[in-house]
């Protein structure tokens, strides 16, 4: 087949795929809702959630993963467009880490050094480090498959950002269950758990995002 013949065949094909920006929210919300339902059906929500919401650390615990997810969403969509820049999303990615760091240090500086270890360890390190990556796994796969519609020329970075998005979404799903409210707890363990999902994304990206 000559190139001009291939061009003629291609120009007759007028069916366009849906852009990532439209498909990703559906994949993400679907996977997060399914994983969240399964989790809360087995584990149950914390009974004092409403009361806990009046405390600033709890509000930050519940909202920083959402801020992180929003920024990662914006960044990952840009990464699936060849030649596109991150624009403001690069800066937006720094907001949630800044909130976490500020919350951590604000609490840490008001805590005597002897109390740091127990504040960081909390009561539920194991549960948190198990469930955030676990809930994050289906979300990560749904995200990566939605991203296959895009055209990432940097699959490892795109995978990392997809993992950051999925891990943050997972932490947002998990947070209303968790009763460890100290920023010294979630400032360490949520971040590490999200990091596990992010690194998984970076490892899977080059395999799943080829085109």
């Amino acid at each position: 087949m000559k190139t001009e013949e291939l061009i003629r065949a291609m120009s007759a094909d007028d069916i366009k795929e849906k852009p990532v920006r439209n498909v990703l929210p559906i994949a993400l919300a679907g996977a997060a809702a399914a994983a969240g339902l399964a989790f809360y059906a087995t584990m149950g929500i914390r009974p004092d959630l409403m009361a806990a919401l009046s405390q600033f650390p709890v509000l930050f615990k519940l909202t920083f993963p959402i801020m992180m997810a929003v920024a990662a969403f914006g960044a990952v969509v840009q990464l699936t467009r060849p030649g596109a820049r991150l624009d403001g999303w690069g800066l937006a990615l720094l907001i949630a880490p800044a909130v976490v760091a500020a919350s951590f240090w604000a609490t840490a500086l008001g805590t005597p050094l002897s109390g740091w270890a127990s504040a960081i360890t909390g009561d539920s390190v194991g549960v948190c480090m198990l469930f955030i990556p676990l809930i994050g796994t289906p979300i990560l796969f749904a995200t990566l498959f939605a991203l296959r519609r895009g055209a990432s020329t940097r699959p490892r970075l795109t995978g990392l950002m997809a993992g950051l998005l999925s891990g943050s979404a997972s932490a947002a799903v998990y947070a209303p269950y968790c009763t460890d409210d100290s920023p010294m707890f979630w400032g360490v363990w949520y971040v590490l758990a999200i990091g596990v999902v992010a690194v998984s994304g970076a490892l899977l990206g080059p395999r799943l995002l080829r085109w």
Partner: protein
Amino acid sequence: MKSANGPPLDDLLRAANHGDQRAYASFLAAVAPIVRGIARSRGSGLGPDACEDIVQETLLAIHQKRHTWRDDAPVRPWLYAIVRYKVVDAFRARGRRVHVQIDDLADVLPAETAVDLTERSDAERVIAKLDPRSARIVRAIGLEGASIAELAVTLEMTETAVRVALHRGLKKLAAMREGMIE
């Protein structure tokens, strides 16, 4: 910036995205010499056949990913990023490492004359692997210039079914090209 002669690539692709098939054909026809130029400048030892295969592979990728371009962005950064990615990939699949910078693409001397690919070309080998109906539709439109409406009558299919078969056929061609790289 203008393509060699004719309206800027941006206008062509924008019109194409609003359903103008002729604008889309002109867009692809204007892009082909750029890809051919870069493939030949990097692949002097590969031979013109392999270079034309790379051109077709890249055009198929542009076609599959045309929805990732935003109408309000300039087309060249998008186009060059795809061309660079696919050309480097296509050479890697043929056991070669090449470097392509975005600036090289802006400066490349477009190579207008295509070679006629032989039976052994990648395009022929992958079309032969399509299901017979899709293969027939892709060939009839490409080689004979048949229209969707004509094919619908000849093949006793609805026009929508022909369009879907063409779309799937081309998608599969692109995927199989990709598969040959693994």
